[in-house]
């Protein structure tokens, strides 16, 4: 396994290791295993070598390249990169090179990170397994016969396989946390508005949030602090810095109140996964937290509300892919026929399904019954969360109902695939933060993720809980496969 980002950056900043050396170590791992894993749509080895050499030159000149000096980072391929293809794993954008960098990409570079490539995803981030990528699925580095989760499966697999020390994903209904759980790495979905969405190709604009994959909780805190904070280019960006979570990683959980979400521990949750969440609860109690079960009834409506709200927003956002301004075009005699031919050839089945579902939920006669009602359920979920957070500082649950499943298991039945997101979706509807961290393995020996949830801007409590869980797992001996 690779070293964590903090250790790598420290060794580069001190001159102990060169950024070029760190990069070549990661590139050699890509050479060895990428053919099996397929984490990337594109590996940018040459530009990465130039970036790493620049970091080394700055160290040699006595400058500090930043807190992520020489740290290799992989970027989900729905983050715009100036002059570098950004496909969203869709045929319709194949070959498109954005004319600008996403804000998070600019901030990572300013912190000294070295971009090694663009990672695979379910087309336009719609899916839970990367099986919806137009360029073929990513495989789970722990077991190549299993999915890595999705939609940010490539970013999760890249960190799990040691291809990069950190990566970025986007999370609309669990697309960072679920693949983090299935690949045995840390994944964070920050509070809505804390990380700029400028340059993130839009899926569900009221739900989307960018966040990191890392191997340690401390690395996740650092990357959040680097990429977060106000951006005037995103009108939904909160006017504040990312909370200083790194300063509180050693605070412990003594006196914190932590709830176990009852609705996420019963039906549909694999017993071995639930057992790991109970073990996490025991570890927190042993560290001084007050741990109790808490019922949050409205969460049971989360899946239904999400699969109306997210497709509705997607159907509007994806209207822009019409063969006029970017991406591919299928020629036809008239503009209308060209647009239909382009969209029919360019989008995969899952994207078409969601566009049609969203168009239906927004259409005259059904708006009130579906979209309007889903927005009201969103309020119920937020209110029920608020009531729980009057009694608790943070909540825990499984991240995903099962460990990584096999390819093809759920592709024939979209609803079964959607049920994978049942534990992660409510967070996005509320706009709250949540993260997944590995906490042992299931009966099949594959990683289990525990989800830590917190109220809006409750990142400090969330990271304190995660940090204690990480330490307790380390002190109880290796459980990972």
């Amino acid at each position, binding site marked *: 396994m690779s070293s964590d980002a903090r250790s790598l950056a420290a060794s580069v900043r001190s001159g102990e290791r060169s950024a070029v050396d760190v990069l070549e170590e990661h590139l050699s791992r890509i050479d060895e295993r990428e053919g099996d894993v397929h984490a990337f749509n594109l590996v940018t080895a040459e530009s990465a070598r130039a970036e790493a050499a620049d970091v080394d030159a700055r160290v040699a000149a006595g400058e500090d390249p930043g807190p992520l000096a020489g740290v290799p980072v992989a970027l989900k391929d729905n983050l715009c990169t100036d002059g570098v293809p950004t496909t969203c794993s869709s045929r319709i954008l194949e070959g498109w090179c954005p004319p600008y960098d996403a804000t998070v990409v600019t901030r990572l570079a300013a912190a000294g990170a070295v971009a090694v490539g663009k990672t695979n995803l379910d087309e336009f981030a719609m899916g839970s397994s990367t099986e919806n990528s137009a360029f073929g699925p990513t495989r789970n580095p722990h077991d190549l016969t299993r999915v890595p989760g999705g939609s940010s499966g490539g970013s999760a697999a890249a960190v799990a396989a040691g291809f990069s020390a950190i990566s970025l994903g986007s999370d609309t209904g669990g697309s960072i946390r679920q693949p983090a759980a299935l690949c045995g790495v840390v994944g964070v979905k920050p509070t809505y508005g804390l990380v700029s969405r400028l340059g993130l190709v839009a899926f569900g604009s009221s739900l989307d949030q960018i966040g990191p994959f890392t191997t340690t909780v401390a690395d996740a805190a650092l990357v959040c602090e680097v990429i977060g904070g106000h951006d005037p280019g995103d009108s*939904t960006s909160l006017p504040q810095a990312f909370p200083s979570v790194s300063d509180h990683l050693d605070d412990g959980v003594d006196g914190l109140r932590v709830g176990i979400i009852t609705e996420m521990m019963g039906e549909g949750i694999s017993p071995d996964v639930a057992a790991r969440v109970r073990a996490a609860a025991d570890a927190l109690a042993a560290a001084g937290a007050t741990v109790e079960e808490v019922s949050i009834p409205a969460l049971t409506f989360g899946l239904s509300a999400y699969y109306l709200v997210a497709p509705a927003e997607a159907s509007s956002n994806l209207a822009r892919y019409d063969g006029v301004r970017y991406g591919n075009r299928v020629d036809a005699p008239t503009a209308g026929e060209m647009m239909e031919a382009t969209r029919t050839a360019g989008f995969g089945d899952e994207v078409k399904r969601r566009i*049609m579902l969203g168009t239906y939920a927004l259409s005259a006669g059904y708006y009130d019954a579906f979209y309007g*009602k889903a927005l009201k359920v*969103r309020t119920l979920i937020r209110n029920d969360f608020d009531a729980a957070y009057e009694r608790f500082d943070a909540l825990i649950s499984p991240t995903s109902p099962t460990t990584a499943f096999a390819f093809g298991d759920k592709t024939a039945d979209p609803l079964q695939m959607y049920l994978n997101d049942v534990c992660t979706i409510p967070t996005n509807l509320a706009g709250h933060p949540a993260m997944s961290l590995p906490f042992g393995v299931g009966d099949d020996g594959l990683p289990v993720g525990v989800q830590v949830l917190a109220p809006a801007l409750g990142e400090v409590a969330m990271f304190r809980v995660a940090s204690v869980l990480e330490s307790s797992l380390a002190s109880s001996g290796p459980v990972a496969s």
Partner: protein
Amino acid sequence: MDQSTPADDDAVITTADVAKVASLARLRLEPDELDRFTHQLADILGHAADIEALDLDDVEPMARPVPLENVLRADVPGPTFDRDAVLSQAPAAEDGQFRVPPVLGEAP
């Protein structure tokens, strides 16, 4: 072909509905796709029956997590994208503009 055949006896969406939304969304579906998508969308909407049954008359809708506020900036010119750089990524461009097939004279 009977376009209004429901996917199931108690289906919430028919093939005619799906054909309509596909047309609105500028997607063309083959007959087998129409049947398959209708069944799948009916499954998903069937799952949403749990919220259809809720009495939510007194609940405010929540469209976004953060209240929407107008965002203003100083009225001074800033950097903009280079026109040629943007047009270079378009499927077709001419004379500094996006080029599209004829729009007028189409069937409605």
